[in-house]
């Protein structure tokens, strides 16, 4: 669907909303001026579907918030730019901040782009909330104490959670392990985290093969053959791009998935492509921060999923939740800070002060911001099942696991790998 570059969203009852808005949100000057939020989302390439998902989540949020009067009485207007590579994205960011003078920038899915943009965000003194792409591995040297930048939960959270689930449910049932992960930092860190956790809990294991397909490659027949030759008890895979359903198809065709335990922390990104035809039941399947069919979903999530299904004939993945969390927590912080000033639009420092430490109900569950500007969110994983009305797998409602990321990511200032060795995990 088309999301035009500038989306000026007027509520269904435009005048009515202003009239019914509580008097406290009636700042003298700025009520007429919309609140402009800049969005940086990938729209082409392998991360395009994530960008699209996030944009849709943002769009829904904006429609909903504007119907309720906007943020502190100001209607929201989105200014959308494309996230491409570090150089161009920095330029688009500066355009948003310097030319378009947006009040807040949200978006970013890629780790590399996020790392390059971070220092620019701080220098520009522009409040920015990343949707994704945070990696705790080596982050300490890069941007230790950002003020204006708020970053998503650590990329490795889902791997940690899946590893804990594998240990909890399958301890003693596997010995030989194979890994097939995309050959970049995300895949490397996830696999390493899995192995580190196995070591930490003294689970006997042997890594018999590690496949590192090029990011996004769909030529996986040889990888599948190599895995089959190795005959592992368990396969760990953080594949998450278009290669994921392709791998599943080819693995199924090669009968690799029969009898092998499968741990797929990031499978939820492509969940609607994981058809029942070739995706087995009983695999550890990660949906990250949004599981669309969660029996314990809030009314808001159900409303969103229904809206999404109706409008796009598809079901959302977690990027939509990341985007919603960014804009919802921003709204919450602005309104809290505005309240503290008797209704006037707050200064950026006030918003930052209100945002850090705050928490909101995001689509997939509770989400909050740590003092070091890293997000904490609710993660949902489980075991795949065919018992549903869709043509793709969902989670077995009897064995859905929910964990808050405080249990899954390292605290501020710690080193990720040291933390893995010593932290108290509740399994």
């Amino acid at each position, binding site marked *: 669907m088309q999301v035009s570059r500038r989306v000026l969203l007027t509520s269904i009852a435009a005048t009515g909303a202003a009239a019914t808005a509580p008097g406290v949100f009636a700042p003298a000057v700025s009520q007429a001026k919309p609140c402009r939020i800049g969005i940086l989302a990938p729209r082409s390439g392998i991360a395009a579907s994530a960008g699209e998902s996030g944009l849709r989540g943002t769009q829904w949020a904006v429609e909903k918030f504007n119907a309720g009067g906007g943020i502190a009485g100001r209607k929201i207007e989105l200014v959308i730019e494309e996230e491409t590579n570090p150089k161009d994205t920095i330029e688009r960011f500066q355009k948003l901040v310097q030319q378009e003078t947006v009040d807040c920038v949200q978006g970013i899915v890629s780790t590399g782009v996020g790392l390059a943009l971070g220092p620019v965000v701080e220098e520009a003194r522009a409040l920015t909330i990343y949707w994704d792409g945070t990696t705790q591995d080596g982050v300490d040297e890069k941007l230790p104490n950002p003020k204006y930048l708020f970053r998503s939960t650590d990329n490795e959270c889902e791997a940690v959670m899946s590893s804990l689930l594998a240990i909890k449910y399958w301890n003693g049932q596997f010995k030989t392990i194979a890994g097939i992960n995309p050959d970049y930092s995300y895949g490397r860190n996830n696999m390493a985290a899995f192995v580190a956790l196995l070591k930490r809990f003294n689970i006997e294991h042997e890594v018999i093969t590690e496949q590192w397909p090029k990011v996004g490659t769909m030529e996986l027949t040889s990888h599948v053959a*190599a895995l089959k030759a190795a005959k592992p008890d368990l396969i760990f895979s953080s594949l998450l791009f278009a290669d994921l359903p392709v791998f599943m198809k080819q693995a199924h065709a090669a009968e690799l998935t029969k009898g092998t335990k499968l741990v797929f922390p990031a499978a939820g990104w492509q969940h609607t492509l994981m058809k029942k035809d070739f995706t087995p039941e009983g695999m550890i399947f990660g949906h990250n921060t949004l599981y669309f069919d969660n029996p314990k979903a809030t009314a808001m999530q159900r409303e969103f999923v229904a809206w999404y299904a109706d409008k796009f004939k598809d079901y959302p993945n977690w990027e939509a939740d990341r985007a919603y969390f960014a804009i919802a927590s921003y709204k919450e912080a602005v309104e809290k800070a505005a309240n503290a000033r008797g209704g006037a639009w707050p200064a950026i420092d006030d918003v930052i002060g209100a945002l850090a430490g705050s928490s909101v109900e995001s689509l997939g569950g509770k989400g909050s911001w740590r003092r070091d500007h890293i997000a904490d969110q609710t993660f949902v994983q489980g075991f795949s099942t065919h018992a549903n009305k869709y043509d793709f797998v969902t989670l077995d409602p009897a064995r859905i696991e929910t964990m808050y990321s405080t249990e899954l990511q390292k605290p501020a200032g710690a080193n990720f790998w040291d933390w893995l060795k010593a932290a108290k995990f509740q399994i």
Partner: protein
Amino acid sequence: MSGATSAIGNILIGGIFHAAVLFLVAAGLQLVFGVQKIVNLACGSFYALGAYFAITFVNLALNAGLPGWALLPLLLIAGLLMAAVGPPIERLLRAVYDRDESFQLLLTFALVLMFQDVFRFVWGANPRSLDNVHLIYGKWAVGDFSVPFYNLMVIGAALIAACLIGLFLKRTNFGRLLRATAENRAMAEALGVNVRAVYAAVFTLGTLLGTIGGALVVPTAAASLDMAVEFVIEAFAVVVIGGLGSMPGALAGALLVGLIRAGSLVVYPEFEILAIYLIVIGVLLLKPTGLFGKTAA
């Protein structure tokens, strides 16, 4: 079949399957280069076009009630239909035939850029795929070794295509005209060959090979936005290894790339991406014009 042999068998077949698809697209590239001296950077875009359209076409057909075993003919038809973009693009390229070959290369690069957004506009940001429809043809299994018949059919199709192209070039009149034009365009024109028609036909044939390659690969893979740009590299590696303009070169290059890639996965998986480039450089160091190439201009 023992475990080890079946493993090798699986990997070999995987490599050969990949080589088959590579060959189809590379053959298209070779044909166009051999006759028109154009290197078509948009070959990956044709490949992607074939893949995306095949998914739409097959889904439409299957939903309309066509039986599952019609898959292979449907894919071939889808590829054929998309070859229709060949003639208009060739007309566009006609504007730069007389110019420096770098202009031709650039025009194809412009096409790559344009196609990227066309795919996004028509098919959206999400990757598309066909479910395991191709398994309807069943599998051939011996012990641990198993390969879907579909994969074997694709390999067969590529071999048939190779033979047909070879026969076409060597035995038919038009093929002779093609080779003549490739050797010496001016002379061929002077002798009365309608070079324009030859160019149009060759380019369309090249496009057809590309779109069919994409269509045939899509059941076992998927169509995604970056596949066009990624595929160009491998296709070029095949062509450089095999020798620019050479059909047997396309076959040899494709096999080499497919098998070495597959093999490296067993021996040293980390090596996979680098393997192809190192082979390219290695071949060029030993035989600069490629395995089957004539002396470079």
